[in-house]
């Protein structure tokens, strides 16, 4: 977005704050439900409490990657091509990676309770691990510096290649662990009778995770926009700073000298020079 056009917000600032507060409230409710209200079950003891986090995390992770795929398609189609789709794809993918990693951690803990080992080759978990690898590759590709249009198109295609693999991975891993296996070792095979408290816990978990994802998505998407602007306009700022140091009048009002450090290689949220 150029500096001369007013920034339109898809979601008003107050709306985002409200969303964030809702997410926070839902999280608290879910945690309370999961740790206090829900009781242990006979099959899995205390570990059934993980029902509040693990399945919602897994589902939202898939949703996040679905959003990335959709945004990528919209970017590639010439009629709907806009940089905002590319930014949305990137933002959603990064959040998806976070959610997938958390899915694996909670799944590992849950599996440890039943099987005593930190990793069982459970079909769902293995599929999630591959999903993580797929989108870590996508994120790595995003960090490769290139002209913005080139980068966006490259990443969009990479996202679609990865997404096409997801159903294949799903079928392959589930056949792998069910064909000629005795019983399916499945973490998420629900207890025969989910009592009301557990049902509510699961629901609250889904609500909380969805709200968290939505809020994170908006903020991360905006961050992408800011990064992009900084890349384009940051050079002007740095030049002004140098001029100020040299005692010359700056071209504009005196800015802070590169406070963000984005023009030098820094943290991973920056697409720094290679």
């Amino acid at each position, binding site marked *: 977005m150029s500096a001369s056009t007013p920034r339109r917000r898809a979601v008003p600032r107050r709306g985002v704050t409200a969303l964030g507060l809702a997410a926070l409230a839902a999280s608290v409710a879910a945690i309370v439900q999961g740790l206090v209200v829900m009781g242990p079950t006979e099959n899995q003891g205390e570990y059934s409490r993980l029902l509040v986090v693990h399945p919602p995390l897994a589902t939202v992770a898939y949703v996040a990657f679905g959003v990335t795929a959709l945004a990528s398609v919209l970017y590639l189609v010439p009629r709907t091509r806009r940089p905002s789709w590319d930014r949305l794809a990137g933002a959603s993918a990064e959040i998806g990676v976070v959610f997938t990693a958390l899915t694996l951690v909670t799944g590992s803990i849950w599996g440890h309770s039943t099987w005593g080992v930190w990793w069982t080759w459970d079909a769902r978990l293995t599929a999630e691990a591959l999903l993580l690898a797929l989108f*870590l590759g996508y994120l*790595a590709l995003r960090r490769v510096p290139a002209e913005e249009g*080139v980068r966006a198109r490259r990443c969009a*295609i990479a996202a679609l290649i990865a997404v096409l693999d997801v159903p294949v991975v799903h079928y392959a891993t589930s056949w792998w662990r069910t064909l000629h296996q005795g019983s399916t070792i499945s973490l998420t095979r629900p207890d025969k009778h989910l009592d009301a408290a557990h049902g509510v816990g699961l629901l609250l978990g889904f609500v909380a995770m969805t709200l968290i994802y939505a809020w994170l998505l908006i903020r991360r998407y905006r961050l992408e926009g800011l990064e992009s602007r900084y890349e384009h306009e940051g050079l002007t700022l740095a030049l002004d700073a140098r001029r100020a140091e040299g005692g010359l009048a700056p071209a504009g009002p005196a800015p802070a000298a590169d406070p963000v450090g984005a023009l030098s290689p820094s943290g991973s949220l920056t697409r720094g020079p290679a």
Partner: protein
Amino acid sequence: MWRDAVLVAGKDLRIEARSRVATNQVAPFALLVLILFAFALDVDRGVLTKAAAGLYWVAVLFSALLAVQRSSAIEAADGARDQLRLSGLDPAGIFLGKVAAVAVQLLLLEVLLGVGVVVLYDASLRGVWLVVPTCIAATAGLAAAGTLYGSLAAGITVRETLLPLLLLPVAAPVLLAATKAWQAALDGTPADGAPWLRLLGVFAVVYLTFGVLAFGSLLEES
């Protein structure tokens, strides 16, 4: 499109014939992988024989990585990419041609590795009519996905480390399915291998189709 494909395939294969990278480098590498497995696993040949199908396909996968790297490197040199784009060849044809060239090299490597596995791991290749289609389907899929990613990463300096990171997760289900299919053939229960073969076929079709549709977009980038 098909004529362009044959043209490009012929070009890539002729370059290969002249430079002999596949024969002099990739093939020995593939055999080396088989030997390394023997060091890594108990040479109580029971283990190697039992795992032969899986080890074979891991070796194929690593060789495919090299073949794909090579395939995309051909264009990266001397601005050949731009020439390819401006040549007026149908991008879908270029894609299919490159896929075919990689596939041919891979199939030859697979035959070599097959001999290696029989000799080194004492595997008995039964069920040829499951083994061969598996190789064809898996190769088609690997070549298609590999060529897509290879072209995508072609302009990038970190291509050598990025390409494996991109390709291996996508290729993982191919490894799984091909191993299972081969395992079924070697165990003498080929019926078990049928769903896996079908999965490989689907994978190949999906990525070949996607490549045909999207390759033009990939070439577009300067």
